[in-house]
């Protein structure tokens, strides 16, 4: 039997005031009338805790757009879970935060799109910067720990020192600097987002120096730009290993991007229990362990480190979800990634960013 998951990523809604062109939600966004009801979510939380989940990440979209958020926080907290609110900060007033904190939110993760108002609001597609700065102050005043999360790409990578300074100013205890991963929206906008080698070469030592300087005060987690690396990321620490995602419509996913693998039959909480889905569904068992692997992964000692990389990326770039992640230098499809880098890192004509919106 698979080991129990540690966390549930609860995507309460795909509705969001922001329109970031690298959103981790799928391109086909779930509409409001297809969202799970309050009772459905309460049941999902019960089942997640019974399965072993100890952390509930209340995410979206923008979770503050769910009027039942206070009730969901109370329930997640009553189960003994660590409750993480993942928000854009838009709609987070002082009163709202105080109320959510009193009901059991343990930690707030706030997105920041760029170091400056102009850059932030251009990427977000709305005026959000001032509200994020305000929201961070409310979180700090309330005494809750704060993580600032910034997705990095060609448009903001040159401002990395400013982003780090901004997170310090906001009083963050953690800063996640995550280079864009190319699924869904980000895949569509890849030619706008892919950073150049030069940009990464400048940014990397700035991050390392800040990590050393801020040690003990602000932890900086740096997620690499995998197209530029020789080895893939240890995606999700293995398929169906530590966390599960429930989408707004109740679809249960081994990773938030898994809907891109069109060959995968996705289960739903309306039809089956999380216990049944986690342990027995074909989708969660598809790439567990090592038996599904082909060479070069199968005979590679690194399989214990990177688990063959990302299944979604393998599917998107090779058409085979069980292939070696093509960013790996040992993958027979690495040339596909090299060609993408060559043509999209510095395109002669940069296309306009496709802003995220409901179709």
């Amino acid at each position, binding site marked *: 039997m698979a080991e*129990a998951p*540690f*966390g549930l990523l609860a995507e309460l809604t795909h509705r969001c005031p922001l329109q970031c062109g690298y959103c981790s939600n799928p391109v086909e966004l779930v509409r409001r009338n297809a969202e799970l009801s309050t009772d459905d979510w309460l049941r999902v939380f019960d089942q997640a*805790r*019974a*399965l*072993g989940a*100890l*952390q509930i990440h209340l995410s979206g979209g923008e979770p503050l757009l769910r009027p039942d958020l206070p009730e969901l926080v109370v329930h997640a907290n009553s189960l*003994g*879970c*660590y409750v*993480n609110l993942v928000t854009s900060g838009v709609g987070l007033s002082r009163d709202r935060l105080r109320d959510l904190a009193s009901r059991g939110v*343990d*930690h707030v*993760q706030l997105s920041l799109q760029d170091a400056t108002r102009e850059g932030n609001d251009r990427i977000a597609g709305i005026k959000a910067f001032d509200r994020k700065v305000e929201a961070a102050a409310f979180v700090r005043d309330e*005494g*809750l*720990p704060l*993580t600032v999360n910034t997705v990095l790409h060609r448009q903001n990578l040159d401002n990395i020192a400013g982003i780090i300074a901004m997170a310090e100013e906001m009083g963050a*205890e*953690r800063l996640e600097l995550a280079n864009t991963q190319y699924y869904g929206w980000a895949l569509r906008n890849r030619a706008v987002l892919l950073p150049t080698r030069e940009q990464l070469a400048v940014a990397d030592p700035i991050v390392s120096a800040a990590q050393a300087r801020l040690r003990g005060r602000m*932890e900086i987690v740096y997620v690499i730009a995998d197209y530029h690396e020789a080895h893939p990321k240890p995606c999700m620490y293995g398929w169906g290993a530590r966390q599960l995602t429930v989408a707004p419509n109740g679809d249960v996913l081994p990773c938030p991007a898994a809907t891109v693998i069109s060959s995968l039959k996705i289960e739903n909480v309306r039809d089956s229990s999380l216990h049944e889905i986690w342990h027995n569904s074909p989708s969660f068992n598809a790439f567990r362990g090592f038996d599904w692997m082909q060479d070069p992964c199968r005979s590679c000692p690194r399989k214990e480190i990177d688990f063959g990389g990302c299944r979604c990326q393998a599917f998107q770039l090779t058409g085979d979800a069980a292939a070696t992640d093509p960013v790996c230098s040992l993958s027979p499809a690495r040339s596909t990634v090299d060609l993408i880098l060559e043509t999209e890192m510095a395109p002669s004509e940069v296309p306009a960013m496709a802003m995220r919106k409901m179709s």
Partner: protein
Amino acid sequence: MTSVVALDAVPHIRRGVKCAYDQIRSAHVVLFPEGVLVLNETAASVVSLCDGVRSVGDIALVLGDEYDGVEPEDIASLVARLVERRVVDVDG
């Protein structure tokens, strides 16, 4: 890089970190942003004594009454690992 924790250092649980008992795993756990630590019995005892009052040496004395062969250096190295995982902070 593992920090060195002195015997007179006073550890406390960091803000935003929750300690709990998980019936599903039958183990004490520490919950913190983006992470879960499942503790063995010794680690759970140490964490429960990281109260911002007792020093590492004090914790070793308390545990010495309960278990055989408790070495203060072992407690210090366990606390250092908890500092690395950002579960506890030390003063002094």
